[in-house]
C-alpha cells in the first residue's frame, strides 16, 4: 500500500493505462501544458508527448464528439471535461452518439471512451459551477457512471473504465483531489465496475451513497455511533451498473435505509435506489427509506445559503434517527 492523494491516484491510473495501451490518449482543456485545471494530468505531457496528451480549444461539443469518433475508429480516448458543468455542452454527443452507438449499429461499434472530470459542488462557485451531474448520464441506457470517493477507488475504477468497452462518465470531486488514502501498489490494480463496497459495517441502519458524499456518510455514522447507533455505510462506487445485490444485502441486514446524494432529489440516483428497495426488499423494511439531498434549488453563492443548500452529516443523522423512530 502507498499513501497518496486522489489526484495522484488518478494520475497514476492514467499513466499506467497509457503505458499499457498505446491507443489510450488524453484530450481536454488545459490538460497538457497547464497539467490540467486540477493538476490531474501533471507530467503526462512530458512523458507521453503532444500526440497523446492534447490541449483542446474550449469546444466541449467538438472534442467530446471527437472522442466518440476516435472510439468508433478503434482508439480509447480519455476526454477530460474541466468540470461536468461544462459537459452540458457535449451531452448531445455523449447521449445521442456514445450511449447509443453500439446499439444502433447492432454491435458493430463498441464505445470505449471515458469522459472524466469533477462533478458536484466545491466552495461558493454558485449556480452554474456546482452541479452534481450523475443523473443526466445514468438516465441513458448505454452510458456507465462511475463515482469514486477514495484514492484507491479512483485508481482502480479509472483503470477499469479505460479498459471498458462502453462509454463511461467518470465523475470525480473537486474537493476530493487533495484527499489522501492508501492505494495498492500493483500496476494491475483494477476494481470492476458495478461493485459497491461497504465502507463501514453496522447493524442498525444503512446509509447508502455514492461519490464524495461517502465522507459525509462516514461523518454521520461517527456521530450516530456516539449515540449508540451503528450505521452501515454502503458506497455504490458505480451508479450504473448498479450493485443491486449489495443494496439489498445491507437493507436486509439493517431493515432501515437512508440514501444520501449530493445532487437534487427529483428523479435522482436515490429515487432509483429507493424504488429498487421497495420493489425487491419491501418485506424487509421497518421504515420508509428517506433521502438526503441538495435543497431543491440552484446552488446559491452566499456562504450561508450554500451551507443550507448542501446535504450535511447532521441532516443524515436526522434522517437516520427518523427511520429508527428515535
Amino acid at each position, binding site marked *: 500500500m502507498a499513501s497518496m492523494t486522489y489526484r495522484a491516484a488518478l494520475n497514476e491510473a492514467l499513466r499506467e493505462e497509457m503505458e499499457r495501451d498505446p491507443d489510450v490518449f488524453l484530450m481536454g482543456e*488545459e490538460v497538457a501544458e497547464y497539467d490540467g485545471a486540477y493538476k490531474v494530468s501533471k507530467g503526462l505531457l512530458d512523458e507521453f508527448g503532444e500526440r497523446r496528451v492534447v*490541449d483542446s480549444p474550449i*469546444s466541449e461539443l467538438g472534442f467530446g464528439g471527437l472522442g466518440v469518433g476516435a472510439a468508433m475508429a478503434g482508439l480509447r480516448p480519455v476526454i477530460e471535461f474541466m468540470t461536468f458543468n461544462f459537459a452540458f455542452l457535449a451531452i448531445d454527443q455523449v447521449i445521442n452518439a456514445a450511449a447509443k452507438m453500439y446499439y444502433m449499429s447492432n454491435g458493430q461499434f463498441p464505445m470505449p471512451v471515458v469522459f472524466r472530470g469533477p462533478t458536484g459542488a466545491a466552495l461558493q462557485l454558485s449556480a452554474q459551477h456546482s452541479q452534481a451531474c450523475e443523473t443526466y448520464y445514468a438516465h441513458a441506457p448505454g452510458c456507465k457512471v462511475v463515482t469514486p470517493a477514495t484514492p484507491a477507488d479512483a485508481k482502480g475504477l479509472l483503470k477499469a473504465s479505460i479498459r471498458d468497452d462502453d462509454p463511461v462518465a467518470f465523475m470525480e470531486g473537486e474537493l476530493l483531489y487533495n484527499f489522501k488514502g492508501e492505494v495498492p501498489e500493483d500496476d494491475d490494480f483494477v476494481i470492476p465496475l458495478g461493485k459497491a463496497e461497504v465502507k463501514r459495517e453496522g447493524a442498525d441502519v444503512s446509509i447508502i451513497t455514492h461519490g464524495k458524499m461517502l465522507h459525509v456518510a462516514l461523518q454521520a455514522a461517527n456521530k450516530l455511533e456516539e449515540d449508540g447507533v451503528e450505521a452501515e455505510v454502503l458506497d455504490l462506487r458505480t451508479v450504473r451498473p448498479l450493485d443491486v445485490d449489495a443494496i439489498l444485502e445491507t437493507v436486509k441486514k439493517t431493515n432501515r435505509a437512508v440514501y444520501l446524494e449530493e445532487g437534487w432529489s427529483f428523479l435522482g440516483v436515490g429515487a432509483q435506489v429507493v424504488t429498487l428497495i421497495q420493489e425487491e426488499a419491501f418485506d424487509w423494511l421497518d421504515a420508509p427509506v428517506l*433521502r438526503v439531498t441538495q435543497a*431543491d434549488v440552484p446552488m446559491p*453563492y*452566499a456562504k*450561508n*445559503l450554500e451551507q443550507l443548500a448542501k446535504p450535511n452529516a447532521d441532516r443524515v443523522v436526522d434522517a437516520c434517527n427518523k427511520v429508527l423512530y428515535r
Partner: protein
Amino acid sequence: MAQTTAEPDQNAEQAEEAAPDINSARAADGHRWETRDVEDPFDHFGIPAEDARGLLADMLLYRRFEEKAEEAYAIGKIGGFCHLHIGQEAAAAGCIKPLRSEDYVVTAYRDHTQALAKGVEPEAVMAELYGRRDGASGGKGGSMHIFDKSVRFMGGHGIVGGQIPLAAGIGWKVHYREEDEVVVCFMGDAAVNQGAFHETLNMSAIWQLPVIYVVENNAYGMGTAFKRVSKLSVADRGKGYGIPCSSVDGQDVLATYAHFRDLVAGVREQGGPRYVDVQTYRFRGHSMSDPVSGTYRSKAEVKSATEHDDPIALLRDRLMDADELDQEALEEMDADARETASAAADFADESPPPDPEALYTHVWAEVNEHGRLFFDGRDRPEGL
C-alpha cells in the same frame, strides 16, 4: 495583422526573448498600433480632453475596485471564483461608455467592471462579491453572476460562450419590436471556439440583429495561448458570416471609445450586427486561484505589458503631456476612486447575509396551486 503558425514551444520562446515595447502577445506578430503615437490624440479621436478625463476617472475606479476585491478575496471576504479585469479596463470604459442607458450589455464571468461601466452601483457589485443581501443579485449569484435589470446589465455568465446566444435573443427583441437599442455582448477570445459563437453570428447576420459582439482578446484562455487553439486570429474568426469585422487597440481607451461611438451609431441607424476584436491584456491570473504567469506566459511578458500597455498610464500620460491634467488633479481623481472602492467594501461588509428563507425564493416564478414543485422533503418558508 500578421498571422503566425508557429509551434507552441516556439511561441513561448519568442515571448521570452521579445522584450517588446507593447503587449508582447501582439509583439510576436510584429504589430504596433500607430494610433499610440498620434500627435494630438484628443483631436485625432474626436474626444475632448474633458471627456477623456472622465474616462480616466472611470478606469481608475475600475482598477481600485478590483484591487479592493483582490484584497477582500485574500482575507476570505469573497469566495469561489473571482476573475479580475485589471489591465482590461479600457475595454469596459471604451465599449460601454458610448452606449445609452437603455442599451444592453451582457458578458461572461469577468464582469465586475463592465457592470460598473453600465451603471450598476459599486456598492451593489461589491456586496454581490461578498455574497450579501444588498448585492446586485441578492448574494445568490456571486462574482460571476452580477445582474441589474434596472440598468440593462444582463448578466455575468459562467459557461464560456453561454452569453453569446443570449445577446442574440436580446437583439431579437429589439428587432422584433422595431426599437433602436443596441446590445453589446462581451466574450473572451477562448469563447470563439465554442459552437454557440458560430451559430449565433450566423443567426445575427441573417436577421441583422443589433448586436455588437466584442471579443476581449487578452490572448489567453485560462492557461492556453489563443494561438495554440486557433489557426486564425481572433479578428479572422468572425469572418465568414457576412458581418463587418474590425480590430481595435483595447489598451487605448480613446481608440476603443471612438471606435465604439461610431459602431454604436451605425448599428442604431442601420442595424447590426458587428464583430470587434478588442486587443487587450490581463495583468492578473485567470482567476484569483490561478498564477499570473507560468508555463503559458512568461513573467517578462507580463512585466512588459504592465509597463508599456497599461490603459490607465497610457491615457494619464497623454493628458499630462497635453497639459490637460496635473499631478494634483490626478491624485485627487485617484483618491476619489479609492474612496468609492473603499466605501463599496465597507457597505458590503455591513450588508447582512441573505435571509435563510431566500434559499427557496426565485426558483420558480410562482408557486403552482395544483402540483408540487419542491421535492427535497425539507421545511420551507410559508407559501413555498
